[in-house]
């Protein structure tokens, strides 16, 4: 072999080895942790826990922020409180309404050290009426003051002696920094500083904000997080509006997890063998909104006819007639609310004030003129009878549910028909109250359904039915301010009764919600917030 040929062979060998090494290293690199992509129906507008107004915003803040106490998913799948930014929480043994909290040595995502002033300013922000925080009344009802006690000490004084197990839950409000971009944040966060923070926030959570585009928000892992360094490189929230498109993205590997799913999506995904599913009963419910401002639906008798006509179990065969995974509503709250959140206080659910009674429903429909209206052509819609609007994005579920309702109403001689609308048109119809009947889904409530008042308050922008009742307004205000269980039970039962009389909705049901994911480990869904264990999520291949 000549030198030239030997040299050529040597060069070739080196090149092969180099290519092989590159391929091996590339292979290793692809198996390392990467960002996990989560498909969501909508992106959070604001990432400020003080001012969140949508479920996705509340959930996303779990990725970015900590409370002094965090709600975590324990090994048995239950959501329980655990120390977060607090290193210790000590109840004063004399009056038992004072809690002394020592904060951990922790740093914000921008490098500044966490201090007691952050907690004090956070509380001030939550209770500032300008921020319209959903936690304001609850916190003010229980906490009288939050004060700094040295650099890392915080004194939280409750209005009355309170047991530790209840105080810890109150201390779960997320802590936001006192300083942002070198300046002190005002308590009123509705100005430009607050808006800037909500767009590009700084927290202490396991993920830190990296970037935002129209269709996605990118969060990087924060290795110094008090919950421990995340197992993944980060999380991407990617907006994919359509249910089918989200499923397709999961199956094609473009996303790792779907947080927003429909009740009938499971069969579609069960066919793909490697898709994992975890289900939970969300704090959410479906109902049929009645536009009470329309003359034919303005009488309580007409609305009672609608409520009494419906057999909820018969609405979507295969889903609503299951023995588990579905819970009916006979009023404004799911029937199991009391027995679920207060099992020590209740052994049975709400009394059903308007049980199904087809003959009575038919009679009421006749006497109220609803039946006669239904037999005429609708003013607004081409088909005869009452139009049941629903968003087309609900797909098969919307179609089957509206058909089921049409059939149930028909048995009571109330003529109705499904009216699928493009999502934007549907939203516009709800917003302008230009519908007759509309299927609605309300979600994102806390365990007590505290936010439900906004659906019924006379002046609320979220009052889609147009119901206006001074007595109900008063009851809702009392319930919103109730912090003692005795008062809360009294007010909740009173609201249930009054709403049953007014009947602005045909209450329907809650169904289990599914979270689908592929190739991930460490996922544990314990509540409406899928991100409780997000710092443990990791691609199975990267483990």
């Amino acid at each position, binding site marked *: 072999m000549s030198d030239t040929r030997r040299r050529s062979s040597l060069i070739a060998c080196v090149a092969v080895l180099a290519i092989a090494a590159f391929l091996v290293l590339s292979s290793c690199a692809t198996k390392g942790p990467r960002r996990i992509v989560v498909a969501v129906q909508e992106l959070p507008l604001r990432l400020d826990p003080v001012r969140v107004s949508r479920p996705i915003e509340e959930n996303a803040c779990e990725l970015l922020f900590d409370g002094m106490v965090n709600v975590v998913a324990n090994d048995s799948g239950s959501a329980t409180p655990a120390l977060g930014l607090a290193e210790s929480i000590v109840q004063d043994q004399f009056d038992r309404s004072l809690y002394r909290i020592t904060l951990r040595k922790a740093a914000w995502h921008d490098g500044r050290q966490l201090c007691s002033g952050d907690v004090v300013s956070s509380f001030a922000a939550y209770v500032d009426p300008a921020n319209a925080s959903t936690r304001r009344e609850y916190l003010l009802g229980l906490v009288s003051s939050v004060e700094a006690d040295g650099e890392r000490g915080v004194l939280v004084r409750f209005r009355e002696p309170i*047991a*530790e197990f209840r105080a810890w839950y109150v201390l779960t409000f997320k802590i936001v920094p006192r300083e942002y971009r070198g300046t002190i944040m005002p308590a009123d966060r509705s100005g430009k500083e607050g808006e800037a923070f909500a767009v590009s926030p700084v927290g202490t959570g396991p993920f830190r904000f990296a970037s935002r585009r129209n269709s996605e928000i990118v969060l990087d892992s924060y290795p110094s997080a008090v919950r421990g360094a995340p197992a993944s490189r980060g999380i991407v929230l990617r907006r994919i509006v359509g249910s089918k498109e989200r499923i397709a993205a999961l199956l094609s590997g473009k996303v790792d997890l779907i947080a927003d799913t429909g009740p009938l999506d499971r069969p579609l995904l069960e066919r793909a063998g490697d898709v994992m599913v975890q289900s939970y009963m969300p704090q959410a419910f479906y109902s049929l909104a009645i536009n009470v401002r329309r003359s034919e639906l303005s009488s309580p008798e007409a609305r009672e006819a609608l409520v009494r006509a419906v057999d909820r179990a018969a609405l979507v065969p295969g889903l609503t007639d299951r023995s588990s995974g579905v819970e009916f509503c006979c009023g404004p709250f799911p029937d199991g609310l009391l027995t679920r959140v207060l099992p020590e206080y209740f052994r049975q659910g709400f009394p059903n004030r308007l049980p199904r009674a087809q003959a009575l429903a038919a009679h009421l429909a006749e006497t109220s003129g609803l039946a006669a209206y239904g037999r005429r052509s609708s003013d607004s819609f081409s088909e005869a009878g009452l139009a049941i609007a629903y968003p087309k994005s609900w797909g098969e579920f919307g179609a089957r549910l509206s058909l089921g309702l049409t059939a149930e109403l028909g048995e009571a001689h109330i003529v109705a028909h499904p009216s699928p609308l493009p999502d934007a048109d549907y939203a516009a119809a709800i917003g302008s109250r230009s519908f007759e009947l509309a299927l609605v889904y309300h979600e994102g409530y806390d365990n007590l359904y505290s936010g439900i008042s906004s659906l019924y308050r006379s002046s609320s922008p979220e009052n889609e039915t147009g119901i206006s009742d001074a007595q109900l307004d008063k009851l809702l205000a009392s319930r919103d301010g109730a912090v*003692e269980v005795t008062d809360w039970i009294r007010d909740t039962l009173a609201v249930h009764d009054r709403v049953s009389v007014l009947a602005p909705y045909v209450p329907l049901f809650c169904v289990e919600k599914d979270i689908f994911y592929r190739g991930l480990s460490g996922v544990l869904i314990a509540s409406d917030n899928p991100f409780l264990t997000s710092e443990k999520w990791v691609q199975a291949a990267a483990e």
Partner: protein
Amino acid sequence: MAKYVSATCIAIAISLAISSCAVFRSPAQRAQALIEEGSRLFSAGYVAEAERTWAGIPDSEKREEYTAYAQAYSAYDAAVSRAEKALSSAGPEAAMAAVSGAGAIPAAPTAVVAPDPLGAAARLDRVATTAGAALASRAASAESSADGSLIKTRTGAIADRVAAASKAVDGYIEAARLYRSAGDRAPEAGAGASRSSSKAAKAEELHKALLKESLVSFSDRMGEVFARSPADTKKLDDKALLAFNAETDSLIRHALAEFDQVVAAYPDLIDPTKAEKLRLSASSLSARFARIEGAIKATKNRGRPVMPLLIGIFNPQPGDSQRSRPGSFTGSSVSGSDWWWGIVDIPKGLAQDLVITMSDNRPVRVYAAGQGSSAGKTASDLVNPLFKVGNSWPVLNAGERLENGIFHIEVGPGLSSSYSGEAVVYKSFVVRTR
């Protein structure tokens, strides 16, 4: 004796002389002679003889004047003698009273009579001066003692402070009285009486203020009594427990009676509505003893009692009629279970929680009546594990779930032998998990 014999002889001679003269003198002359003779005797200290002489004065008016004077002086002298005797035997107060009783020395009807031939006035003055000085000294001592009592009103338990104030008031009143008794015989008495009276008035104001404070804090103090604990709970059998319960009941009833007495004695001290509220608060405590007694007798296999045995909602605000303290217990166990029991007092319809908090992380179970100890085969632990935080074990809605409010605590073994725990009742507040 010789003095009396010679006086009698003189009197006989004088009588003979007078008799012989009488034959020759007018009645006026005879009267004048008797007056002079009596005066001479009186001035010589023979008061009784003088009286007898003056008794012979024919002019009834004159006779009365002179004999009355002699009698008055004799009485004055006797009073002085009593004062002297009182000073030596009954003390200065009695002496001063006798001095006052003696009054002023009678005025002599004529210049020929030497006043106070027996020196009674001077003797009386000596008695008064000596007694006055002694009284002023006692007054100063009483005042000083009251000052000491006043200092004791500044600190200590409210009942002791009230007693000290009362003692100070009494002391100053006594001092003022003694100073006044001393009168002008002691130079400092006038100022002392005035000063002590002023101090007495101020002490009385303080006494009332303390009494009011005592009334207002009554329910708190009764709460303390209710929450008292026997010295040794380890050997507290049923008999001892019942006795302790009865004793506490008695203490509260006794205090209640005292409360009523004070309210009756000082009706303006506290608003009647408030007084009734406080009274009812203490009465309700007292009424609970029957419940405790019933529970002790009825409940079997219950373990040792937490103290206080019956607990209501915890509230440390002073004056709050609902105030209650934790039921506490201490023990030692490294293997097996220890059993404790107590009673919650939760009004029907109110959502309140019982929380058992331990000093360490040993396990705890809580059962309703009849399910503890050896009766435990159907026992159902009432602790909600979802809400367990740290070493606190909560029983939610305890009032509804514990029959007659009776609870049994099963304390499991821990790493260390000794442990302590508390049973506390809290209001049930709603918790939001989002």
